[in-house]
């Protein structure tokens, strides 16, 4: 009986200690001592001490979270800003976007799985990541156009090399630009999330 009641009290004080963890250690200990003394005095006043009686003592003390909130308010302690967790999904998506071929495909899929980017951000990421598709289509169309254009003037050497440069540059450079853009959008989100509410 006594051990059950002791366990109840111990759990309450442990909950309170957990709620008070962002307070300076001396203030936290002071409050734990005082609430502990309160419980001891209240238990001494119970005659006889019953489990229901002790539960009532703890209920009257209130939710440990309420006591901690009061301690923060009375003590002028701000709840430390919750540091946004590292957005791993987004980081991996950005890294994949700059890795050619399979990376581009998986990166685009991850971009759409994210809930941190806006639809516009995701479209930009997709166009960048999938730019090799555009380049590929361009190649097919060029060669198709070339075969259809048999008889007409063939592409000059300078035009061919320009086309080659474009076809190489688009799939390799645009994903990098898209990845940089998405990274900036992620940083902007972090700054907004950690700014104090106005």
């Amino acid at each position, binding site marked *: 009986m006594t051990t059950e009641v002791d366990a109840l009290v111990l759990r309450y004080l442990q909950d309170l200690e957990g709620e008070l963890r962002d307070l300076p250690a001396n203030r936290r200990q002071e409050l734990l001592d005082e609430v502990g003394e*309160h419980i001891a005095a209240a238990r001494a006043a119970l005659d006889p001490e019953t489990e229901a009686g002790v539960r009532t003592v703890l209920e009257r003390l209130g939710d440990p979270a309420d006591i901690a909130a009061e301690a923060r308010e009375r003590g002028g302690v701000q709840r430390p800003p919750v540091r946004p967790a590292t957005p791993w999904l987004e980081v991996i998506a950005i890294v994949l976007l700059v890795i050619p071929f399979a990376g581009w495909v998986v990166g685009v899929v991850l971009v759409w799985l994210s809930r941190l980017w806006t639809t516009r951000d995701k479209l930009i990421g997709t166009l960048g990541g999938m730019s090799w598709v555009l380049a590929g289509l361009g190649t097919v169309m060029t060669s198709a156009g070339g075969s259809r254009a048999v008889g007409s003037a063939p592409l000059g050497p300078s035009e061919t090399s320009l086309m080659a440069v474009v076809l190489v540059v688009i799939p390799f450079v645009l994903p990098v630009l898209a990845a940089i853009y998405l990274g900036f959008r992620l940083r902007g989100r972090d700054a907004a999330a950690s700014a104090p509410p106005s």
Partner: protein
Amino acid sequence: MVPAKRESLITQMRRGTLEYCVLALLRDQPRYGFDLVRSLGAADGLVTSEGTIYPLLSRLRRDGLVTTTWHESPSGPPRRYYQLTSEGGRALALFTTEWDRFTDAVDHLLRQGGSP
């Protein structure tokens, strides 16, 4: 009035006055925590969670309005008693004067709508 509004109204009124109720309870004699908290709890609507008094006592002590001393208890271990300091006494006297003035003004407006 909807319960949520009533609750927040009481919370706001309590916020500014509760510390002076604590000082008032300590005016005539020092009290230990449990005794102090139960006396406050006996006043209707002043305290919902008894535990929230301890952060308040902690602040009153840091502000120098209250000190703590240890006294033997008739049963069990020694108890921490909260005692009004002279500065606490002055703060309580000032509040009492202002409170009388304030409640007179509010009462007047509430009951007579401001007519003389």
